[in-house]
Protein backbone atom coordinates (compact mmCIF):
# COMPACT_ATOMS: atom_id res chain seq x y z
CA UNK A 1 0.00 0.00 0.00
CA UNK A 2 1.34 3.37 -1.04
CA UNK A 3 0.60 5.93 1.65
CA UNK A 4 1.90 9.50 1.38
CA UNK A 5 3.45 10.81 4.57
CA UNK A 6 1.96 14.24 5.22
CA UNK A 7 3.92 16.53 7.52
CA UNK A 8 2.20 19.81 8.39
CA UNK A 9 4.27 22.99 8.23
CA UNK A 10 4.45 24.72 11.63
CA UNK A 11 3.78 28.21 10.20
CA UNK A 12 1.93 29.56 7.17
CA UNK A 13 4.03 30.75 4.18
CA UNK A 14 5.50 34.25 4.26
CA UNK A 15 6.14 36.61 7.12
CA UNK A 16 3.88 36.02 10.11
CA UNK A 17 2.93 39.74 10.17
CA UNK A 18 1.16 39.41 6.80
CA UNK A 19 -1.16 36.82 8.35
CA UNK A 20 -2.18 39.30 11.03
CA UNK A 21 -3.00 41.71 8.18
CA UNK A 22 -4.88 38.91 6.37
CA UNK A 23 -7.01 38.10 9.44
CA UNK A 24 -7.80 41.81 10.03
CA UNK A 25 -8.77 42.32 6.38
CA UNK A 26 -10.95 39.20 6.42
CA UNK A 27 -12.73 40.49 9.51
CA UNK A 28 -13.26 43.97 8.02
CA UNK A 29 -14.56 42.76 4.66
CA UNK A 30 -16.53 39.95 6.31
CA UNK A 31 -18.48 42.46 8.43
CA UNK A 32 -19.19 44.57 5.35
CA UNK A 33 -20.38 41.52 3.38
CA UNK A 34 -22.73 40.49 6.20
CA UNK A 35 -23.84 44.13 6.60
CA UNK A 36 -24.75 44.23 2.89
CA UNK A 37 -26.67 40.93 3.04
CA UNK A 38 -28.75 41.96 6.06
CA UNK A 39 -29.32 45.55 4.82
CA UNK A 40 -30.74 44.03 1.63
CA UNK A 41 -33.46 42.37 3.71
CA UNK A 42 -34.81 45.83 4.63
CA UNK A 43 -35.53 46.71 0.97
CA UNK A 44 -35.09 43.76 -1.39
CA UNK A 45 -36.85 45.49 -4.31
CA UNK A 46 -34.51 48.51 -4.12
CA UNK A 47 -31.41 46.28 -4.04
CA UNK A 48 -32.65 44.16 -6.97
CA UNK A 49 -33.51 47.21 -9.09
CA UNK A 50 -30.25 49.00 -8.30
CA UNK A 51 -28.26 45.86 -9.09
CA UNK A 52 -29.50 46.06 -12.70
CA UNK A 53 -27.34 49.19 -13.17
CA UNK A 54 -24.20 47.10 -12.62
CA UNK A 55 -22.21 45.60 -15.46
CA UNK A 56 -22.09 41.85 -14.69
CA UNK A 57 -19.74 41.24 -17.60
CA UNK A 58 -17.24 43.67 -16.10
CA UNK A 59 -17.41 41.87 -12.73
CA UNK A 60 -17.00 38.52 -14.49
CA UNK A 61 -13.92 39.75 -16.41
CA UNK A 62 -12.49 41.17 -13.16
CA UNK A 63 -12.88 37.75 -11.49
CA UNK A 64 -11.12 35.91 -14.31
CA UNK A 65 -8.33 38.51 -14.30
CA UNK A 66 -7.73 38.18 -10.54
CA UNK A 67 -7.93 34.37 -10.50
CA UNK A 68 -5.48 34.15 -13.40
CA UNK A 69 -3.07 36.67 -11.89
CA UNK A 70 -3.14 34.67 -8.65
CA UNK A 71 -2.21 31.59 -10.68
CA UNK A 72 0.75 33.54 -12.14
CA UNK A 73 1.87 34.52 -8.64
CA UNK A 74 1.71 30.87 -7.44
CA UNK A 75 3.96 29.93 -10.37
CA UNK A 76 6.39 32.71 -9.46
CA UNK A 77 6.61 31.46 -5.86
CA UNK A 78 7.01 27.83 -7.02
CA UNK A 79 9.80 28.85 -9.41
CA UNK A 80 11.78 30.30 -6.50
CA UNK A 81 10.95 27.55 -3.99
CA UNK A 82 12.02 24.84 -6.43
CA UNK A 83 15.31 26.63 -7.11
CA UNK A 84 17.22 23.65 -5.70
CA UNK A 85 16.80 21.86 -9.01
CA UNK A 86 17.88 24.81 -11.14
CA UNK A 87 20.18 27.80 -10.89
CA UNK A 88 19.01 30.62 -8.61
CA UNK A 89 19.44 33.14 -11.43
CA UNK A 90 17.24 31.12 -13.78
CA UNK A 91 14.63 30.61 -11.05
CA UNK A 92 14.49 34.34 -10.28
CA UNK A 93 14.33 35.13 -13.97
CA UNK A 94 11.36 32.78 -14.37
CA UNK A 95 9.69 34.18 -11.24
CA UNK A 96 10.09 37.76 -12.48
CA UNK A 97 8.36 36.82 -15.76
CA UNK A 98 5.40 35.29 -13.89
CA UNK A 99 5.27 38.35 -11.64
CA UNK A 100 5.29 40.69 -14.64
CA UNK A 101 2.29 38.82 -16.06
CA UNK A 102 0.53 39.11 -12.66
CA UNK A 103 1.30 42.85 -12.48
CA UNK A 104 -0.07 43.42 -16.00
CA UNK A 105 -3.26 41.57 -15.02
CA UNK A 106 -3.47 43.66 -11.84
CA UNK A 107 -3.22 46.84 -13.92
CA UNK A 108 -5.84 45.43 -16.32
CA UNK A 109 -8.18 44.88 -13.34
CA UNK A 110 -7.64 48.48 -12.19
CA UNK A 111 -8.33 49.88 -15.68
CA UNK A 112 -11.48 47.76 -16.04
CA UNK A 113 -12.68 48.89 -12.61
CA UNK A 114 -12.03 52.57 -13.44
CA UNK A 115 -14.10 52.19 -16.62
CA UNK A 116 -16.88 50.61 -14.54
CA UNK A 117 -16.76 53.41 -11.95
CA UNK A 118 -16.80 56.02 -14.69
CA UNK A 119 -19.93 54.42 -16.24
CA UNK A 120 -21.59 54.40 -12.81
CA UNK A 121 -20.72 58.04 -12.09
CA UNK A 122 -21.99 59.08 -15.54
CA UNK A 123 -25.42 57.81 -14.44
CA UNK A 124 -25.24 60.31 -11.57
CA UNK A 125 -24.82 57.57 -8.97
CA UNK A 126 -22.97 58.47 -5.77
CA UNK A 127 -22.44 57.01 -2.30
CA UNK A 128 -25.62 58.72 -1.12
CA UNK A 129 -27.87 57.55 -3.99
CA UNK A 130 -29.22 54.65 -1.93
CA UNK A 131 -28.07 51.88 0.47
CA UNK A 132 -27.21 49.46 -2.35
CA UNK A 133 -24.89 51.92 -4.11
CA UNK A 134 -23.41 52.98 -0.77
CA UNK A 135 -22.35 49.35 -0.18
CA UNK A 136 -21.39 48.77 -3.82
CA UNK A 137 -19.11 51.82 -4.00
CA UNK A 138 -17.70 51.30 -0.51
CA UNK A 139 -16.85 47.63 -1.08
CA UNK A 140 -15.54 47.91 -4.65
CA UNK A 141 -13.52 51.08 -4.00
CA UNK A 142 -12.04 49.64 -0.80
CA UNK A 143 -11.15 46.51 -2.74
CA UNK A 144 -9.75 48.68 -5.58
CA UNK A 145 -7.36 50.26 -3.05
CA UNK A 146 -6.22 46.78 -1.98
CA UNK A 147 -5.57 45.74 -5.60
CA UNK A 148 -3.58 48.98 -6.12
CA UNK A 149 -1.46 48.23 -3.04
CA UNK A 150 -1.11 44.58 -4.11
CA UNK A 151 0.16 45.67 -7.54
CA UNK A 152 2.78 47.90 -5.90
CA UNK A 153 3.84 44.97 -3.66
CA UNK A 154 4.13 42.66 -6.70
CA UNK A 155 6.19 45.35 -8.47
CA UNK A 156 8.58 45.46 -5.51
CA UNK A 157 9.00 41.69 -5.19
CA UNK A 158 9.59 41.52 -8.95
CA UNK A 159 12.32 44.14 -8.61
CA UNK A 160 14.02 41.96 -5.99
CA UNK A 161 13.61 38.81 -8.07
CA UNK A 162 15.26 40.61 -10.99
CA UNK A 163 18.25 41.13 -8.67
CA UNK A 164 18.24 37.36 -7.96
CA UNK A 165 17.13 38.15 -4.44
CA UNK A 166 15.16 34.96 -3.78
CA UNK A 167 16.15 31.34 -3.36
CA UNK A 168 14.59 28.16 -1.98
CA UNK A 169 16.12 29.03 1.40
CA UNK A 170 15.10 32.71 1.24
CA UNK A 171 11.62 32.87 -0.25
CA UNK A 172 9.80 34.53 2.63
CA UNK A 173 9.60 37.94 0.88
CA UNK A 174 7.97 36.64 -2.27
CA UNK A 175 5.61 34.42 -0.21
CA UNK A 176 4.55 37.45 1.84
CA UNK A 177 3.68 39.49 -1.25
CA UNK A 178 1.93 36.50 -2.80
CA UNK A 179 -0.19 35.96 0.32
CA UNK A 180 -1.47 39.55 0.14
CA UNK A 181 -2.33 39.12 -3.55
CA UNK A 182 -4.25 35.88 -2.89
CA UNK A 183 -6.16 37.64 -0.09
CA UNK A 184 -7.29 40.27 -2.62
CA UNK A 185 -8.41 37.41 -4.90
CA UNK A 186 -10.26 35.60 -2.08
CA UNK A 187 -12.15 38.78 -1.11
CA UNK A 188 -13.17 39.44 -4.72
CA UNK A 189 -14.51 35.89 -5.16
CA UNK A 190 -17.09 36.55 -2.40
CA UNK A 191 -17.71 40.18 -3.45
CA UNK A 192 -18.43 39.23 -7.08
CA UNK A 193 -21.13 36.69 -6.23
CA UNK A 194 -22.67 38.81 -3.46
CA UNK A 195 -22.89 42.16 -5.27
CA UNK A 196 -23.09 41.26 -8.96
CA UNK A 197 -24.87 37.91 -9.14
CA UNK A 198 -27.12 37.00 -6.19
CA UNK A 199 -30.54 38.65 -6.42
Amino acid sequence: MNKTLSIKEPYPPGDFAIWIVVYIELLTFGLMFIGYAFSRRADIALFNTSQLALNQLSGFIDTLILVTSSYFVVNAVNAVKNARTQKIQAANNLASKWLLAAILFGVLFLINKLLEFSAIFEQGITLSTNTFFMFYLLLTMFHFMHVSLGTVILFNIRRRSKQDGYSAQDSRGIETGATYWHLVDLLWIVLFVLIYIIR
Partner: protein
Amino acid sequence: MASSRSPMDCALCTYLHYKVNGMKKSIEGVWLILFILTVFAFLLGKLEFVNSVMVGILLLSTFIKGQLIIDYFMGLKNVQLKYSIIPTLWLIIVLSSIAAAYYLPAK
Protein backbone atom coordinates in the same frame (compact mmCIF):
# COMPACT_ATOMS: atom_id res chain seq x y z
CA MET B 1 33.38 9.59 -14.15
CA ALA B 2 32.11 8.55 -10.74
CA SER B 3 29.04 10.35 -9.47
CA SER B 4 29.36 12.19 -6.15
CA ARG B 5 25.64 11.68 -5.47
CA SER B 6 24.54 9.07 -2.98
CA PRO B 7 21.58 6.76 -3.75
CA MET B 8 19.68 8.76 -1.11
CA ASP B 9 20.25 11.96 -3.10
CA CYS B 10 18.87 10.33 -6.25
CA ALA B 11 15.79 9.11 -4.39
CA LEU B 12 15.28 12.62 -3.05
CA CYS B 13 15.65 14.07 -6.57
CA THR B 14 13.06 11.63 -7.91
CA TYR B 15 10.69 12.42 -5.03
CA LEU B 16 11.10 16.18 -5.57
CA HIS B 17 10.62 15.77 -9.31
CA TYR B 18 7.29 14.01 -8.81
CA LYS B 19 6.30 16.36 -6.03
CA VAL B 20 7.02 19.44 -8.16
CA ASN B 21 5.28 18.02 -11.25
CA GLY B 22 2.27 16.91 -9.20
CA MET B 23 2.06 20.33 -7.55
CA LYS B 24 2.22 22.09 -10.94
CA LYS B 25 -0.57 19.93 -12.30
CA SER B 26 -2.75 20.52 -9.25
CA ILE B 27 -2.27 24.30 -9.47
CA GLU B 28 -3.36 24.27 -13.11
CA GLY B 29 -6.33 22.08 -12.14
CA VAL B 30 -7.26 24.56 -9.40
CA TRP B 31 -7.13 27.47 -11.86
CA LEU B 32 -9.36 25.52 -14.29
CA ILE B 33 -11.95 24.76 -11.57
CA LEU B 34 -11.94 28.43 -10.49
CA PHE B 35 -12.42 29.46 -14.12
CA ILE B 36 -15.31 27.03 -14.69
CA LEU B 37 -17.11 27.98 -11.44
CA THR B 38 -16.74 31.68 -12.31
CA VAL B 39 -18.25 31.11 -15.77
CA PHE B 40 -21.06 29.09 -14.10
CA ALA B 41 -21.83 31.95 -11.66
CA PHE B 42 -21.75 34.54 -14.43
CA LEU B 43 -24.09 32.54 -16.68
CA LEU B 44 -26.58 32.02 -13.83
CA GLY B 45 -26.61 35.78 -13.23
CA LYS B 46 -26.73 36.73 -16.91
CA LEU B 47 -29.53 34.31 -17.75
CA GLU B 48 -31.38 35.36 -14.56
CA PHE B 49 -31.53 31.82 -13.23
CA VAL B 50 -30.81 33.04 -9.70
CA ASN B 51 -33.68 31.72 -7.58
CA SER B 52 -33.61 30.56 -3.95
CA VAL B 53 -32.18 27.12 -4.87
CA MET B 54 -29.55 28.67 -7.10
CA VAL B 55 -28.48 31.08 -4.33
CA GLY B 56 -27.55 28.01 -2.26
CA ILE B 57 -25.66 26.47 -5.18
CA LEU B 58 -23.88 29.76 -5.88
CA LEU B 59 -22.82 30.10 -2.24
CA LEU B 60 -21.61 26.49 -2.24
CA SER B 61 -19.60 27.10 -5.41
CA THR B 62 -18.18 30.26 -3.81
CA PHE B 63 -17.13 28.19 -0.80
CA ILE B 64 -15.36 25.70 -3.08
CA LYS B 65 -13.60 28.54 -4.92
CA GLY B 66 -12.57 30.23 -1.68
CA GLN B 67 -11.32 26.99 -0.15
CA LEU B 68 -9.27 26.21 -3.28
CA ILE B 69 -7.61 29.65 -3.03
CA ILE B 70 -6.94 29.14 0.70
CA ASP B 71 -5.51 25.62 0.27
CA TYR B 72 -3.57 25.84 -2.98
CA PHE B 73 -2.90 29.53 -3.72
CA MET B 74 -2.33 30.75 -0.16
CA GLY B 75 -0.59 27.45 0.55
CA LEU B 76 -2.45 26.60 3.77
CA LYS B 77 -3.26 22.99 2.83
CA ASN B 78 -0.15 21.65 4.52
CA VAL B 79 -0.02 24.09 7.42
CA GLN B 80 -1.01 23.33 11.01
CA LEU B 81 -4.77 23.42 11.56
CA LYS B 82 -4.64 26.35 14.01
CA TYR B 83 -3.53 28.62 11.15
CA SER B 84 -5.32 27.06 8.19
CA ILE B 85 -8.70 26.90 9.95
CA ILE B 86 -9.05 30.69 10.38
CA PRO B 87 -9.69 31.64 6.70
CA THR B 88 -11.91 28.55 6.30
CA LEU B 89 -13.97 29.54 9.35
CA TRP B 90 -14.21 33.08 7.94
CA LEU B 91 -15.53 31.69 4.67
CA ILE B 92 -18.07 29.46 6.45
CA ILE B 93 -19.31 32.25 8.75
CA VAL B 94 -19.57 34.87 5.97
CA LEU B 95 -21.30 32.57 3.47
CA SER B 96 -23.64 31.12 6.14
CA SER B 97 -24.59 34.64 7.23
CA ILE B 98 -25.30 35.62 3.63
CA ALA B 99 -27.42 32.46 3.26
CA ALA B 100 -29.26 33.29 6.48
CA ALA B 101 -29.96 36.82 5.25
CA TYR B 102 -31.41 35.40 2.02
CA TYR B 103 -33.34 32.46 3.43
CA LEU B 104 -34.71 33.73 6.76
CA PRO B 105 -38.30 34.94 6.37
CA ALA B 106 -38.70 38.73 6.15
CA LYS B 107 -40.01 40.47 9.27
